[in-house]
C-alpha cells in the first residue's frame, strides 16, 4: 500500500460517496482540471461499477430462492405455453401499446447507461472475436445410419440431429435421459458438452470435456479442440494454449487451426 496517498484516499472517498459537500466540490474541480486525475477517476469508477455488478450477479446466482424465481419465470417461458402467454391477461390494445413504449424507454435508457459505463474500456472483445473466428458447430455425420433399429442408437441419432439443427436444450435433454453405457459414452459426453457450448454454458461444457480429453476415446481430438475453445472463452488462456499444443501433435483436422490459435494466445499468456 506504499502508493497510497492523500489524493487517492480522497478519490476513494469520493467514489464511495464518503465525502462532505465541500470536499466533493474541491475534488470535482481537481478532476476537471487534471487530465491524469480524471483518467484515474474514470478507471477507478469502472473497477467499482464492475465489482458492484459482479457481486450482485453472484448474489443472484447463489440465492437459495433462485429455484423459486426460475419456476416463476418458467411460467412465461415454457415453450408449450409461450405463445399463449404473449397475450396480457385482461388487457386491451392501449395497455399493450404502453408496454411497447415502456420497452422502448427502457431500451433507450439502457443504451445510454451502457455507453456511459463503458466509455473507457474498448467495446470490442478480442477473445470473443477469436472464439467466433474459430468456433463452428461440430459437423457430425448422420449417426442414424449406424443402427436405426436399436432404441439407444436411434435416441443418440435424434440427440445428434437436435445438436446439428441447433436445438441444444433438446439435445442435452435427450442425452441426459440416456443410460450412458461404455459403448455410447463418448457420443453422450461429446454432444452433451457441444450442446452446452452451443448454449454458451462454457463451464458446463468444460466439466464434461476435461475428463474426456484424457480418456483416450475416439473423440479425443474433438474434445481437445472444443475444450480449448471453452478455455479461450472463459479466459483460461494457459490451459487453452497447452491443449492446442497437444493438438498440434495430431495430424488431423485441427492441427493447423490449433497452431494458429496458440500463436495468437501468446499475448494473453504473459
Amino acid at each position, binding site marked *: *500500500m506504499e502508493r497510497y496517498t492523500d489524493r487517492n484516499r480522497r478519490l476513494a*472517498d469520493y467514489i464511495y460517496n464518503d465525502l462532505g459537500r465541500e470536499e466533493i466540490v474541491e475534488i470535482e474541480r481537481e478532476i476537471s482540471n487534471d487530465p491524469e486525475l480524471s483518467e484515474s477517476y474514470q478507471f477507478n469508477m469502472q473497477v467499482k461499477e464492475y465489482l458492484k455488478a459482479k*457481486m450482485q450477479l453472484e448474489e443472484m446466482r447463489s440465492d437459495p430462492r433462485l429455484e423459486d424465481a426460475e419456476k416463476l419465470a418458467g411460467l412465461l417461458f415454457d415453450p408449450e405455453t409461450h405463445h399463449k402467454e404473449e397475450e396480457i391477461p385482461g388487457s386491451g390494445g392501449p395497455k399493450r401499446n404502453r408496454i411497447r413504449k415502456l420497452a422502448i424507454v427502457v431500451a433507450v435508457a439502457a443504451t445510454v447507461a451502457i455507453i456511459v459505463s463503458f466509455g473507457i474500456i474498448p467495446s470490442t472483445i478480442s477473445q470473443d472475436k477469436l472464439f467466433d473466428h474459430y468456433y463452428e458447430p461440430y459437423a457430425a455425420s448422420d449417426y442414424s445410419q449406424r443402427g436405426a433399429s436399436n432404441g439407444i442408437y436411434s435416441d443418440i441419432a435424434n440427440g445428434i440431429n437436435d445438436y446439428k439443427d*441447433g436445438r*441444444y436444450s433438446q439435445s442435452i435433454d435427450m442425452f441426459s435421459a440416456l443410460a450412458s453405457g461404455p459403448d455410447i459414452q463418448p457420443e453422450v459426453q461429446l454432444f452433451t458438452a457441444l450442446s452446452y457450448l452451443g448454449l454458451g454454458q462454457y463451464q458446463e461444457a468444460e466439466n464434461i470435456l476435461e475428463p474426456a480429453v484424457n480418456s483416450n476415446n475416439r473423440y479425443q481430438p474433438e474434445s481437445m479442440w472444443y475444450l480449448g475453445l471453452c478455455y479461450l472463452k472463459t*479466459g483460461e488462456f494457459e490451459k487453452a494454449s497447452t491443449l492446442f499444443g497437444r493438438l498440434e501433435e495430431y495430424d488431423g483436422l485441427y492441427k493447423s487451426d490449433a497452431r494458429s490459435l496458440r500463436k495468437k494466445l501468446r499475448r494473453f499468456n504473459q
Partner: protein
Amino acid sequence: MEKNSDQYIIERIRNREDDAFKYLQVKFQDSIRLMVLEMGGSQEDAKDVFSEGLVALIRLVDREDFELNCKLGTLVYALCKNTWMLQLEKQAAVRNYHARKLDSADEQDFTEESDQQLFHKIFWESFKKMDKVCQDILGGYLKEISPKEIAEQMGYSYGYVRKRKSMCHGYLMKLIEDHPTYIKIKQTELTLDIE
C-alpha cells in the same frame, strides 16, 4: 409498505409507474449486462435482453396468480437468463447455416484490440486476492450498506471502516496495476502508440 421494497416495486409496475422501471434499470441493469457478457453476448445483446426481461416481468406481475416468493432481483435475473437462453438458441440455429470465415482477415483486429472480458477477469481476480476484511468492507460499500452498518456488523468503529475502505480500494487498484495481464495489455497499447 416500505418504499422500494420488492412488493412496493411490484405494485408500481402493476400501475405502470415510470419510476418503478427507472428503479429496476438503476438497480439491476449492470448485473444483467454482465451476465449476458459472461454468457457470450455483446453489449447490444445485453441491452435487448434487459428490455425483454422487463417486458416479461410486466407480463408476469399482471397475472392474477402471480405471487412474489423470492427476491425481485433474483426474479429479474431468472427472466433475463431465460430470455438470453432463448436468444442463444435462435442465434445458434442461424449460425449453423453460415459458412466458416477464412483465417487471416481478423488477425490485425485481434492484435490491436484490448479485451473487456480480460479487464473484468483482472478486476475480479484482484478483488479476490485481497484479505477478507478488505473484501467485506468494500463489498459492504458496493452493496450500498451504510458505513455505520458495516462497522456494526464487523465490530469496528465508523471511522476505521471509512479509513480502511480507502486503503483497501487503493490496494485493489495496485493489485490491478500489478496484474501480469494488465501489464501486458498496457505494454501492447504502448507499443501500438509508438508505431
